[in-house]
């Protein structure tokens, strides 16, 4: 039973210049899957993420989320849908500077009007698991990038959403912090059976996933599944990427190599 079905989704931006960002894209995401979406700049990755996160509506096609069709909800219902079903991790963390780390983490719960006991209980268990305990009282500008992203992940998890959407979560991190964050994400994926969709440029990041979906110019290009060894999976991702770049196999792709 897929948790998310994308069916023939097309998104056209009208304006002075009409731009077709997505074109009849179709795929499914299973419950508990860790999916990476890759593609060159301008391929429609961010548009896709915006559509899934329901802050944008597709021009045609359907997105079905656990039998719910977000298109049919009004804006208030959508807000409630987002706050209960989705968790977000952003490239630049987007922690609110005036709140402390712990306040940032419990923010989704306060918005949902939960009791303080629930908040504290979940905060305590998450902080322990994600190793945040010693800087809970600090402000976002007093912690490192890797710590900030872990806080952001905690914020995305605290309301126990059915799906986590990550937009380049390692884009602003050094390689050590990146690895930590990715290992954390895959651990969460394994232990909590959390469904994660991650948009990324980074083949290393993608190699932590179960499946990698490639899109190009808004259309489905290819997908590959993970095998036993991450090393070969990484190599296969690179191969697809060089294909994606338009050149021959073996060429450097248009996107960044590690």
């Amino acid at each position, binding site marked *: 039973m897929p948790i998310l079905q994308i069916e023939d989704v097309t998104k056209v931006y009208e304006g002075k210049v009409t731009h077709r960002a997505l074109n009849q894209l179709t795929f499914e995401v299973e419950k508990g899957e860790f999916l990476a979406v890759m593609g060159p700049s301008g391929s429609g990755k961010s548009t896709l993420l915006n559509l899934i*996160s329901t*802050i944008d509506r597709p021009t045609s096609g359907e997105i079905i989320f656990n039998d719910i069709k977000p298109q049919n909800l009004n*804006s*208030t219902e*959508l*807000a*409630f*849908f*987002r*706050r*209960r079903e*989705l968790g*977000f991790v*952003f490239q630049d963390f*987007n922690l*609110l*500077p*005036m*709140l402390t780390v712990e*306040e940032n983490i*419990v*923010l*989704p719960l*306060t*918005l949902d*009007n939960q009791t*303080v006991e629930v*908040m*504290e209980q979940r905060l305590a268990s998450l902080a322990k698991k994600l190793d945040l305990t010693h800087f809970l009282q600090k*402000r*976002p*500008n007093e912690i490192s990038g890797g710590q900030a992203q872990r806080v952001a992940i905690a914020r995305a998890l605290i309301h126990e959403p059915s799906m986590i959407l990550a937009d380049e979560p390692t884009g602003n991190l050094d390689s050590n912090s990146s690895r930590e964050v990715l290992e954390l994400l895959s651990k969460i994926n394994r232990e909590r059976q959390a469904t994660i969709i991650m948009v990324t440029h980074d083949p290393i990041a993608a190699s932590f996933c179960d499946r990698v979906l490639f899109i190009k110019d808004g259309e489905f290009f290819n997908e590959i599944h993970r095998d036993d060894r991450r090393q070969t999976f990484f190599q296969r991702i690179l191969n697809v990427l060089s294909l994606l770049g338009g050149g021959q196999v073996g060429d450097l792709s248009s996107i960044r190599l590690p």
Partner: protein
Amino acid sequence: MTFHQFAYRNVIRNIRIYAAFFMASFFSVFVFFIYSMLLFHPKIENGYLGNVPIFWMVIAEIILVVFSWFFIFYSMKAFLEARAKEFAILLHLGMDRQQLSRLVFLETMMIGAMSIILGILFGYSFSKFFFMIVREILLLDDLPLYFSFEPFLLTIAVYLSAFILVSLISVYFAPERRIIDLLYGPKTQEVSTLYTKRKAILGIVLIILGYVLSLLTTRTTMILFSICIPVLITVGTYFFFMDTIQYIVDRVKSRKNVYWKKSRMLSIAEQSITFKKNGKMFFVMAMVTTLAFLSIGLLATLSSYTSQYDKLNPLGLIYKGHIDNPLELRHISSLVAELEEQGLSYHLTRFTVLKQTSSFTNYEVEVFRESDINSLLFSYGYPMVRLSKGEGMFIPYSEESIKQLSNRTVHTVLLENKVPITIDQVYPEIIFPSSIISLNSIVISDEDFALLDRPYMGYPEEEPGYHLYTFDIPQWVEAADIGYKIQQVVAAESSKVEYSKEKYPLPYYFENAGLNYSFLLATYSLFTVVGLLVAAVFLLAAGSFIYFKIHTNLEVERKKFDVLRRMGISNKELKSLVTKHLMPQFFLPLGVALLHSLFAFFALQSILKNFANVSIAKEVVFSFLFLTIIELIYFMLIRWRYIAYVRE
């Protein structure tokens, strides 16, 4: 494209960004110009326009200039900050600092020139309208529109130099920031919320102390307190905005049950930052708004006093003298002669008022004769008094006293002559102004009055009574210069008595209602013309400060709301979040200002009570309400734009 063209296109194509700055400059030029038109009006004689000294208007104009310079400087700073990113791109492309300064200078001059030209144009076209209002206020015959170069030159000189100086200063003294910070915004937002608990408590204590003192103000302590209270309040308010609010917010934060509720967490955390960053501005705003409130409230008070003046002072001229006053005949005949000369009709009544001791209170009581009073009442056109033997009637000294005395019955004996009197009524109108008669004045019948042979017990140490001459003049306003010489002598002696607390030495006293009224009216007109200007500019500035502050932070706010929207806040919650975010910024300074001015008016009322019996509560409430509504409209407007912007 030349450099000048670039600057020009920057302005023309970004007119929406520049609009706020332009409007602010435009409005202050507009107001300044209109007042300069008044300042150079050919109708001004010897430094007076009507009876308003121009000197005070010059002072007001100077305040306005200083304020509008500060205001332009502030808006400029906010404006440059909002455009930091744009400048960063230019610097990144290789523009040097010199060129950037020139760009800013050119742009500012373009907007400045535009606002000066339009401000003067609009100002000139509204001058006639303004003159009509001023004419009404100052009771002038006419105040024609005129054309002369002075107001134009003054306005252009003042504002051109303001724009030049401000644009140079704000660019040269802008802190040098790294391009990378400008381009991406500073990586981290400074959010330290330092405060000291001692100052926080001190702030509250000082304000409360100021309030208590203002409640205790009386006429004797007036001068000392009027220096003390503003200092206390100013310092207290400063600490209040810098420390007390932080302290309160921190206390709230430490209680998670209150703090971690819905969107409350966000708005509370935000307030502590908003107030830390802008505490000084809010302090200035609160003080400025207090000043505006005070000037408007004072205006309302004066206007109510002026309109009630006629009722409280029903007599045109009053001459009061000792029984043996040697100058009596000379003074009265000179007053009569002056009145005849001016051709003013009058009704003269002579009273002989005797002092007696009342057995009821054991104090002195001033006794009037029925036929004397009736003669005056006849000229007023009021109903006559009819008293039979043994009856008496209170003479009221204020509106309030009519109500108080109406239910009182007093059985008393005038001790010196053993005349029993029953006083059970009060005359329902004010006959004499309160400055003339004592609080204990009664009318008795002619029969009883004739029995009062023996003088007052205190005689000869104290006067046994007095003679009172009242002139009821229908056109009393025109009688302002009758008896001017007598008035001057009296005024000189009265002011001496006021300082030395000695007994009033002259055997006579004189009051001219018309003259007093003309002084009052002059003060009133001055306050109207000057106070309205100052209040308008202050209010405008206070509002604009918030606007610019919000405008500068808009980009950061937008990003924050974008995150929140993804996390799932509904439109309704977003609106309430915005409301909670903006509300304290608008209404906390306003509320503090309201409270400050409220206590200021308490003090004023208790001072006023001593020499003029006017209640100012109604006027003050009305003017406060009016200002609050203006502020509310402004708040709704800003909120509407703000929501539209962050939802984009």
